[in-house]
């Protein structure tokens, strides 16, 4: 593979890696708050993209559509948590897995019924004339994706480390009893985690749609790969999730050049199985969540 091709693969890898990072972060937030893996996480991404498409079709300008889509998914996430997740928490892991799988299936099918089976496009945020960087062509949308992803990660970092609410959330996942004694409302923390998780996943979905389009079935794959990224970084470790996401994206992108594009998807699953079999705590160590 030539150097230009290599750079090209890296660029595409970083692009999808951003979405994996956001999805992995979404998993991590919910896992840290509840100890539960939200198997419908990928659907948040998918719905973000499709919602934005719908809003644009209704005539809303793109930035507004972005915000509305993200808000809609945030609302959905909150609803899901209140109605479905809360009663599941005492029911045990098997019940939670089955229920979130069911949620994923239901959301996917609803999306198919609303938007059809075609993959739908969205206008790129700032045009589609490629830039030339290091001999490879870079879509401006890619800059948006990576840039916004890094901004989101930074904002979350600041939120969780500097603000009182953020610290309260972290306290909850480290020691729920002590946090409660300090007046932190556990149920509010869980709700917040779901909302933030929905927001960042939906944002990822909106950002990636101009590049790779979005269909009702896109979420399932993104969700699985996002989980693979989170596991690679270490489940429950937010930095691990982000690094895992980018790492997975880059490995996937390079594999297109080294193996073939047909097996691209398999890379994530093989990495997932390797992590789970060989080093379940991931690269940076997973959290053992003290569940409420």
């Amino acid at each position, binding site marked *: 593979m030539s150097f230009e091709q290599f750079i090209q693969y890296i660029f595409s890898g970083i692009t999808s890696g951003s979405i994996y990072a956001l999805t992995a972060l979404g998993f991590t937030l919910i896992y840290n708050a509840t100890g539960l893996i939200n198997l419908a996480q990928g659907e948040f991404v998918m719905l973000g993209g499709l919602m934005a498409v719908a809003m644009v079709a209704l005539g809303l300008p793109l930035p507004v559509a972005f915000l509305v889509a993200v808000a809609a998914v945030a609302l959905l996430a909150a609803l899901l948590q209140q109605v479905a997740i809360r009663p599941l928490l005492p*029911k*045990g*892991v098997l019940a939670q897995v089955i*229920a979130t*799988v*069911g949620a994923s299936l239901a959301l996917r099918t609803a999306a198919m*019924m609303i938007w059809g089976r075609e993959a739908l496009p969205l206008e790129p945020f700032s045009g589609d004339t490629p830039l030339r960087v290091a001999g490879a062509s870079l879509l401006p949308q890619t800059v948006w994706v990576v840039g916004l992803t890094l901004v989101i990660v930074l904002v979350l970092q600041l939120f969780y480390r500097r603000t009182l609410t953020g610290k309260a959330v972290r306290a909850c996942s480290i020691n729920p009893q002590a946090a409660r004694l300090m007046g932190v409302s556990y149920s509010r923390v869980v709700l917040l985690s779901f909302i933030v998780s929905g927001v960042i996943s939906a944002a990822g979905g909106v950002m990636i749609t101009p590049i790779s389009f979005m269909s009702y079935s896109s979420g399932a794959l993104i969700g699985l790969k996002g989980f693979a990224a989170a596991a690679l970084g270490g489940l429950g470790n937010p930095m691990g999730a982000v690094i895992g996401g980018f790492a997975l994206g880059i490995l996937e992108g390079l594999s297109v050049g080294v193996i073939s594009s047909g097996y691209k998807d398999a890379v994530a699953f093989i990495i997932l199985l390797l992590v*789970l079999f060989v080093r*379940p705590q991931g690269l940076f160590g997973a959290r053992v969540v*003290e569940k409420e």
Partner: protein
Amino acid sequence: MTHRGPEAPELTSASSAGRMGDGAAGGTGSPPAVPGAPGRGHVSGGSGGTPGRAFARRNAGFVVLAVVVLCLPLFVSDIYYLSILAFMATRFIVVIGLNLLMAQAGQISLGHAAFVGLGAYGSAILVTKAGFNPWVAMVVAAALSAAVAVVIGIPTLRLKGHYLAMATLGFGEIVLILMIQLKGLTNGTDGITGVPPLTIGGLDFSEPKAYHFLVWGVALVVFLLAQNLTSSRVGRSLRALRRSEIAAESLGVNTSYRKVQVFALSAVLASIAGSFDAHYIQFVSPDQFSITFSIILVTSVVVGGFRSVWGALWGTMVVVILPEVVKRFNEDAVNLVFGLMLILLMIFTPIRFGWLDGLRKRLRRGGGAPSTPPDGGRKRGG
């Protein structure tokens, strides 16, 4: 067997417990004298009478089912309904295996479509490309599925909870990708056509009623054997390890071995069902074995209930018949209904099943909600 009253707190060592009772000799014993023994009076035959009659008494439900199923072709002639019944039979076989894995052993597989696919593709490839006899191909494909299940199962079944679920999902996806990518073998997304129907001697099973007897015959035998398994020593060990792997291990149960064993068994059943379907539809393609199909298989187990293997029957019936009903209103809504059913069933299930140990441990460490029987607070645990 004398009964000692409660005033004699006699606890002799297990050496007496070990003294093997001679019990009733041979096959004509009495129905279990011990209350609490698992059902179906498996302690030898009923009280006298022919073995056949004893069998019927013990397995009344099964006999009724067999009679009903085998008489159906007398009343049903519409090819469409007969084909639905045929799918129900093979689906039933897969779900029985998955029921053993999930309801009995407490594991989960979100990638079981892969094993159905291995059976279907195995049969299709061996028969159309290598000229194998279909029955031999079915056995070879099943053996292959078992081997894959063991190889995948050993590392995977060490995982618990969502890790296990995700690993099986990943496995399912990998098999799907292989089906599409190994074009030389599988024809990729085009699939393999021209899979011949099954025959025995001169009898051609492409005739719907003949096929009905064949496939339901197999399904009924599998059902009976599965029931035997659940009420056997091995079945009991599965239920024990589902409840608490640690306790089962402490009693001498090699839980890793049993889990992999039941996983392989469920893979074999899925494979056989896949082979039957391949010969019936005479066509295999990758999109028959999607993750959605895996989820629908899990739905069948969950809907039918975890109490016994009968759950596999109820679940299969619901999952095969419901789409026919929903289709009249909206073609696409079926999976939405399944998804919602899964959520609602889990929300309203009273049982806290599966991975109880892990949950308990986490609750205790977190110091949060009270977990198991309150020990009166008098003596604090360490």
